[in-house]
């Protein structure tokens, strides 16, 4: 099976000669949730940002559905079918909930925007009730929902999320992850960078453990939790928490 997203030997960093991602290779198949784990500073966020075109790439390739999209400018990535939800500041707080969706819908044909917003509101009824409120007034969990809805509105092939559970209460983490599972069932491919390994592995299909900017281990998500190699690489000191 040809992967939808295929990242090959990616090298990337903010400054020339200071690479944070050092030859990472990961892939994601159709309708699969791929989890990227790793200790702090392993380059997880930088990897996902480099794929999204936000960190300069110096070597390697990113293929989306067989098409080379390496170093495509970030604003063109959504048009290629790759949507990204950053970890923090992932909504426009002074725009209303609906305006946040409308801004993102600019990529779609004009006649498609309003029906698509309605679809998002039926998928996230909580947001529909607050559509006219400033997005900055939403709770943490609702903001995350809005960020996901904002990414989904363009019908991406691949949805990438950087630590969607960060700063959320356990109840909201459960809610967000349940939503992601549901979105995957609709056929979307999801790449999830997470610190919350337990919750992420519970919904993931496959997982990578990233160490020092490249993947050190790959496996089936559910079995990774019990893998002694992974425990030593990363999970060991997390499991007690």
């Amino acid at each position, binding site marked *: 099976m040809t992967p939808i997203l295929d990242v090959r030997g990616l090298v990337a960093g903010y400054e020339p000669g200071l690479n944070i991602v050092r030859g990472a290779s990961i892939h994601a198949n159709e309708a699969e949730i791929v989890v990227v784990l790793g200790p702090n500073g392993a380059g997880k966020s930088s990897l996902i940002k480099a794929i*999204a075109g*936000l960190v300069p790439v110096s070597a390697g390739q990113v293929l989306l559905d067989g098409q080379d999209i390496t170093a495509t*400018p*970030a*604003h*063109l*990535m*959504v*048009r290629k079918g790759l949507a*990204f939800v*950053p970890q923090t*500041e*992932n*909504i*426009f*707080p*002074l*725009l209303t909930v609906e*305006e946040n969706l*409308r*801004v*993102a819908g*600019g*990529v779609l044909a004009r006649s498609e925007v309003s029906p698509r917003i309605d679809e998002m509101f039926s998928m996230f009824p909580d947001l529909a009730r607050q559509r006219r409120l400033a997005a900055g007034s939403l709770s943490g969990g609702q903001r995350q929902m809005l960020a996901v809805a*904002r990414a989904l509105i*363009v019908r991406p092939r691949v949805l990438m999320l950087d630590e969607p559970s960060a700063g959320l209460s356990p109840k909201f983490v459960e809610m967000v992850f349940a939503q992601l599972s549901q979105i995957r069932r609709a056929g979307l491919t999801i790449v999830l960078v997470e610190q919350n390994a337990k919750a992420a592995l519970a919904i993931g299909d496959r997982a990578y453990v990233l160490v020092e900017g490249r993947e050190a281990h790959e496996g089936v998500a559910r079995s990774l939790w019990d893998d002694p190699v992974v425990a030593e690489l990363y999970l060991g000191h997390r499991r007690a928490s």
Partner: protein
Amino acid sequence: MNLQFIADGLISGSLIGLGAIGVTLTYSILRFSNFAHGDLMAWGAYAALTVLGAISALLGTVAPIGMLSFGWPLVVAALVAMALVGGMALLLDWVLFARLRAKGQSIIVVMASFGASMALRSLLEFSFTSKPEYFSRAIQMALPVGFGIRVTPDQVAMLLVTLVLVTSMHLFMSRSQTGREMRAYSQNPALARVVGIDVARIVRATWLIGGALACAAGIMVGVLVQIRPLMGLDMLLPMFAAAILGGIGSIPGAVLAGLIIGLSEAAAVQLIGAEWRAGAAFVILMAVLLIRPAGLFGVSER
């Protein structure tokens, strides 16, 4: 007490507010204080004067509209000049500001805008001399409107034009996709790229709109007062005071603050003395920076 200062203040305040929209847009979207903004006003007035001269040369004298001091050629000249100054602002960005912005140090861009301001002003003085010019030398009678206040038909017309421009601008920013994208970009440039907003397009829209509105304000000052190379420089402090008092990025804020500053200046002239006029904007600017740095409608940096 003579209430004339209220009418005078509202009229000059609306022009300050119109100019301040460009200042506040440039500041919130391009993230620098453009000190050349006032000179775009002056260039706008001279551009309209030049186009008006060309129309008059081609068609001869055209009768004024109703009780106004000008005819439709000025309306046409104003529209042409707005397009020209919008284009000039784009050119200025392409030649100067975009290159410096790419280096990422906003203080250099601010300094460059000082340089651009001086160059633009000198070019006007070189081309048109510093002698004041007028769109029309017709004398207008001020009509009484009650409470001892008198206004000229031109003043009423300019107030209405400002109202139309400000309302259109507000609708554009709140209802159009480009307006929403401009607001989104000013809040979070990185996220704007992630959601697919073309930054180059937003920057172009900002310069075009800022330049065109500065031009409109310059022409209106020209109609109501006179056209001089220094006219933009004189408006610079009140416009910045209005942009800051209104809250950076807020268009209704800039307009309301423009009116407050216009009224304060006119009140200072009538109640204290004409030499205190410029002081009013300065005092308001200082007070806002000390008491409420985010301005009336601004949001503090997160």
